[in-house]
C-alpha cells in the first residue's frame, strides 16, 4: 500500500490522463495494485470523470478507496437510491471515515471540489497503516461491486436492496423466503429498466360491468329481500340477489308485464344465464303472432309457385310416396307450455333478451339430447337428432321442461276455477285454469316436510307430443283430399290415441322416482328453530330445482346446469338404418347386347328353319313339275 501522507507533489494538478486504465502506478506494490487494477479496469470504462487519476488516489492513502467508490457509484445511472452516507457505514470501524464522510470526496463538477485535498485532512498524519485486513475488505467490496455483464446489476447493490426490503417489511422467518425476495427484486429492477413506454391505464372489464350495475341503482329504489331463501340456504348471496331484483324492476318498467318473477340461474360454460319469468298482460302479444303468420303465408305462396313451374318444365319423375309426419303446431302464447314468457341476461345490468316461444318439436328433441349451455344465445346446438334451433331455443325448451316438472306449490294454495267442463272432453280442457285460493290455510313447515302429498304441481306437465294439450294431427287432413285421408288412417292407426298427462294440481306423492330414489327430497331448515323453519324440497329428477314454503309464502327456483338427472349413461340416439336398395331381380338384371355376328347367325338360323319348312313344299312341287316334263317329252 502506498505510504501514508503520500507525496504532496502528486496532486491532481500534475496532470490527469484520461481513462486511467492503462496507467500503471509505479509507486504501488505490485501485489496490492493488481487487485485494484482489476476492479478499476472493470469499472473504469464507465468512468465519466477521467480527471480522477486512480494512480494518484492510490498514492494518497486510505481515502483512495472512497474516491473510487464514488466514481464507481456514479457510473450506475439508476443504481441504488440510498444516499451516499448509507453504504459508507462499511468499514465504519475507522473513525477517520466518519469525518471524511460528511464532506465527502468531491467530484469535479461539485462546488466543493478542490477545497478539501485528500492527504491534507487534519488527522491524516495520525492515520495508522491500513492493515492487510483492510485491504482484504476493500478487495472484497470491490469484488461485490463488480457488475454482471448480463444483467448490469452488482451483488453489492442487490444485497443492499434485499436487506432494506426485509428490514422495511419485517416478514416472519425471512430466511425461508430469502430466495423469493431476491428473485422478486431482480425482476422488479428489470421492469423499471426496460419500460420506456408509458403504461396505458388498464381498462378492466370489471369496470364495465360495475358501470352497468351502478346504472341499476340509479333508477330504482330499495325493495324487499327474500329472507326465506337465505334461511333455507338456497339463493345467491345478498349482493347478487339485490342486483337481480333491481334488474327485474328495470325489466318491469320497460315491458308491459303483469307479473314478473326470478325463475333462476342456469350455469353455462362461458357465461351464465339469469332468467326471469314474465306473464304478459293480455293484448300485448298479438302483434307478434301476426307477424309470424304473415311470414308463414308468404313462404307457402313461394312454394306453390315453384312447384307449378317445375311441373311444367319437366316430365314428372315418379313422386315419392313419403309424407313427412305432420308438424305439430306450437301452443298459443299464453297457454300451455308457452304460458309464461322468459327473459334472460348474462349478468344483472345487461339488457334483457326475450326468448322465443317453444315448439313441441323442440321439446321432443330436447328430451333426447344432453348438452351444456355455452352462455351465448346464438350458439348452434350440434347434436343428433339435430336440434331445430339454436341455443336460445334449447334454453327455452329446457326451461319449459323444468317448469313443468318441478314447479310446485303447497296444497290448497291454488284451486280450480269454479267453472268446469265435462270430464269427457279431450285433454280435460276445463282444468287448465287455476287461481289463488283466498281461503288458503298454510300448514306448518314440519307437516309440509313430512309427506309429499302436501305439495301439488301447478304447471301442466308436457306430454310426449311436446305440448300440454294434446293435438290431434289428423284434424288437418280435412283440408287434403279424401283419398289420402283414408290412406293415413290405415297406415297409422295407433297414433290416434290421445295422450293424457296427469291432471293439474296432482300431489307430489304420485311423482315417479328414478329406480329407488324418490323424486323429491324434503328437508327443514333451520332445524333448531322449527317455528321459523322453512320447508325445502329438492328435486332429484332435476338437480338444482328447489321449492320452499314458509307460512303463506312459497317459491320455486332453479340453480343448476339445466340437465335432467339420469341414472345410466346417456346413450345418444343412433342414426336410422340405411335405406335398403331395390331388390335384385331378373327384370332389372342387365344382359350384354348381342354382337353383330351373333345377330346374323341368329337370323340365318331362323331363315333356315323357315326354308326347311318351305323346301318340304317345294319338293312336292318339283316332283309334280318333273312328272309334267316327262309327259311332254313322250308326246314328240
Amino acid at each position, binding site marked *: 500500500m502506498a505510504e501514508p501522507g503520500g507525496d504532496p507533489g502528486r496532486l491532481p494538478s500534475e496532470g490527469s490522463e484520461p481513462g486511467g486504465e492503462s496507467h500503471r502506478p509505479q509507486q504501488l506494490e505490485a501485489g496490492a495494485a493488481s487487485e485494484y487494477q482489476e476492479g478499476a479496469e472493470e469499472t473504469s470504462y464507465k468512468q465519466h470523470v477521467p480527471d480522477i487519476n486512480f494512480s494518484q488516489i492510490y498514492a494518497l492513502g486510505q481515502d483512495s478507496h472512497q474516491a473510487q467508490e464514488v466514481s464507481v457509484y456514479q457510473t450506475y445511472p439508476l443504481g441504488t437510491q440510498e444516499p451516499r452516507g448509507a453504504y459508507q457505514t462499511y468499514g465504519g470501524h475507522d473513525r477517520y471515515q466518519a469525518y471524511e464522510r460528511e464532506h465527502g470526496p468531491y467530484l469535479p463538477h461539485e462546488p466543493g471540489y478542490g477545497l478539501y485535498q485528500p492527504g491534507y485532512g487534519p488527522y491524516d498524519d495520525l492515520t495508522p497503516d491500513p492493515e492487510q485486513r483492510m485491504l482484504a475488505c476493500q478487495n472484497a467490496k470491490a469484488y461485490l461491486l463488480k457488475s454482471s455483464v448480463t444483467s448490469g446489476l452488482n451483488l453489492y447493490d442487490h444485497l443492499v436492496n434485499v436487506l432494506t426490503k426485509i428490514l422495511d417489511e419485517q*416478514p416472519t422467518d425471512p430466511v*425461508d*423466503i430469502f430466495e*423469493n*425476495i431476491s428473485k*422478486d427484486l431482480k425482476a422488479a429492477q428489470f421492469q423499471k429498466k426496460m419500460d420506456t413506454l408509458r403504461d396505458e391505464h388498464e381498462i*378492466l*372489464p*370489471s*369496470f*364495465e*360491468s*360495475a358501470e352497468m*350495475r351502478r346504472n341499476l341503482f340509479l333508477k330504482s329504489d330499495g325493495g324487499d329481500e327474500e329472507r326465506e331463501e*337465505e*334461511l*333455507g*340456504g*338456497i*339463493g*345467491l*348471496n345478498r*349482493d*347478487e340477489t339485490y342486483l337481480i331484483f333491481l334488474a327485474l324492476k328495470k325489466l318491469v318498467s320497460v315491458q308491459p308485464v303483469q307479473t314478473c318473477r326470478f325463475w333462476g*340461474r342456469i*350455469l*353455462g*360454460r*362461458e*357465461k*351464465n344465464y339469469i332468467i326471469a319469468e314474465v306473464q304478459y298482460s293480455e293484448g300485448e302479444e298479438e302483434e307478434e303472432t301476426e307477424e309470424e303468420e304473415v311470414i308463414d303465408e308468404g313462404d307457402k305462396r313461394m312454394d306453390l309457385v315453384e312447384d307449378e313451374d317445375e311441373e311444367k318444365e319437366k316430365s314428372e319423375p315418379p313422386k315419392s310416396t313419403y309424407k313427412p309426419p305432420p308438424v305439430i303446431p306450437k301452443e298459443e302464447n299464453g297457454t300451455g307450455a308457452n304460458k309464461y314468457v322468459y327473459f334472460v341476461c348474462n*349478468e344483472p345490468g345487461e339488457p334483457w333478451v326475450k326468448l322465443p316461444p317453444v315448439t313441441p318439436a323442440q321439446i321432443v328433441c330436447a328430451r333426447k339430447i*344432453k*348438452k*351444456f349451455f355455452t352462455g351465448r344465445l346464438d350458439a348452434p346446438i350440434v347434436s343428433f337428432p339435430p336440434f331445430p334451433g339454436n341455443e336460445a331455443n334449447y334454453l327455452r325448451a329446457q326451461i319449459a321442461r323444468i317448469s313443468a316438472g318441478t314447479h310446485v306449490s303447497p296444497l290448497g294454495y291454488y284451486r280450480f276455477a269454479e267453472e268446469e267442463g265435462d270430464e269427457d272432453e279431450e285433454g280435460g280442457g276445463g282444468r287448465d285454469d287455476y287461481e289463488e285460493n283466498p281461503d288458503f290455510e298454510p300448514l306448518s313447515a314440519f307437516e309440509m316436510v313430512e309427506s309429499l302429498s302436501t305439495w301439488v304441481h301447478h304447471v301442466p306437465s308436457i306430454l310426449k307430443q311436446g305440448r300440454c294439450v294434446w293435438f290431434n294431427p289428423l284434424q288437418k287432413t280435412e283440408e287434403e283430399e279424401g283419398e289420402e285421408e283414408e290412406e293415413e288412417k290405415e297406415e297409422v292407426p295407433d297414433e290416434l290415441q290421445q295422450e293424457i298427462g296427469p291432471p293439474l294440481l296432482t300431489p307430489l306423492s304420485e311423482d315417479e322416482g328414478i*329406480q329407488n*330414489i*324418490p323424486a323429491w*327430497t324434503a*328437508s327443514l*331448515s*333451520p*332445524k*333448531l*328453530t322449527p317455528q321459523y323453519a322453512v320447508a325445502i324440497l*329438492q328435486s*332429484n329428477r332435476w*338437480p*338444482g330445482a328447489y321449492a320452499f314454503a314458509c307460512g303463506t309464502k312459497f317459491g320455486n*327456483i332453479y*340453480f*343448476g*346446469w339445466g*340437465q335432467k338427472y*339420469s*341414472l*345410466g*349413461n*346417456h346413450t*345418444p340416439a343412433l342414426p336410422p338404418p340405411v335405406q335398403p336398395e331395390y331388390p335384385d331381380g331378373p327384370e332389372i338384371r342387365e344382359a350384354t347386347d348381342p354382337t353383330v355376328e351373333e345377330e346374323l347367325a341368329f337370323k340365318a338360323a331362323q331363315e333356315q328353319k323357315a326354308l326347311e319348312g318351305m323346301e318340304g313344299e317345294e319338293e312336292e312341287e318339283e316332283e309334280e313339275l318333273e312328272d309334267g316334263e316327262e309327259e311332254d317329252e313322250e308326246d314328240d
Partner: protein
Amino acid sequence: MEAAALPAALQLVASGDTGLSLEKRAALGASLLLLQRDYRFERVWFWGCIQGVRGTYYIAQGLGPDLAAPRSRLYSLNCAEWSLLPPATEEMVERAELLTGRFQGDPSFEYAYAEVNAEDDENFQDDGKELTIKEENRLVATIEQIDRAVGIIPRRALMKTPLGSVHENRSFEGLSLTEAKKLSSYFHFTEPVNLKNKTLLEKADLDPSTDFLDSLEHDVPQGSWTVQFEKGSTVVVLRSLLWLGLTFYHVPMTKQYGYIYCGTGEKNLDLPFML
C-alpha cells in the same frame, strides 16, 4: 377452503346450490375451530357437502404441516358433530367406482354390488356371496377421487421445500388478471402424472420449487373446466364439468383462493356428449 375465510369465500362462490343456510354457516364457524383444537390439525378446510337422498353429508379436512401428506377427513350430518372417516385405500376407491347412483344419506347403509371380473373374485375372501360396501367407505373413496381429479390450486401458491414437504408459499401474491384466465395457471393438487412427459424445452422453463404438479391445460376432455369471471371480474371462478358441483374461486392479485364441492357425488360420465 380455509375455515377462517369461510364466510367471505361463500359470498364469492355461492352460485345458489351450495345448500349452506345461515344456521349451518354459523355452526361451521364454531365447530371447525373446535375440530382444530381437538384433533390438533394445523389447518382445517371445509371441503363441501355431498347431497344424499335422505340427508346431506358435510365434509371437513384436517391437514398437518405438510400439505401433501394424507389428510384426515371428517363428516357430519348437522355441521355440529363430526366423525372421522377411515383413510381411503386404493382398494376402496376401486370398489367405489363400481357403484353408481346417489348417496343415501345414511352412513351405515350398505351397498350390495356384483363383482365384475373373475380376477377380482380371487382377491376377495368371500366367494359366491354378495359383496357389500358401506356408505362411509364409499363416501371417503368419492372424496378421494374428487380431490385427485379436480382438487386445484393456483400456480405458485404452494412450494416444495428441498426436503420434499409442501408448504404454503408466503410470497404468493395472487395471479394477475391475464394469468387467471389461463388454465395453465392452475395445478392439480395431487401426485403429478404428466410432469415427466414434458419435453426438455418445457421443463427448462419450470421452477422445481413451484412447478411440481400437473397443470389443468392437458385435462381430457378439453373443455372440462369452465373459467368465468364473476362479480364483474373481481373473482375468477372455475367449475368442473366432470364432477358437477366443484367450484374453485380465486380473487386475482390477492391471496384468497379455495375450492368447495357441493353436489351429489357422482361423476359426470356423459361429459363428452355434452360438450
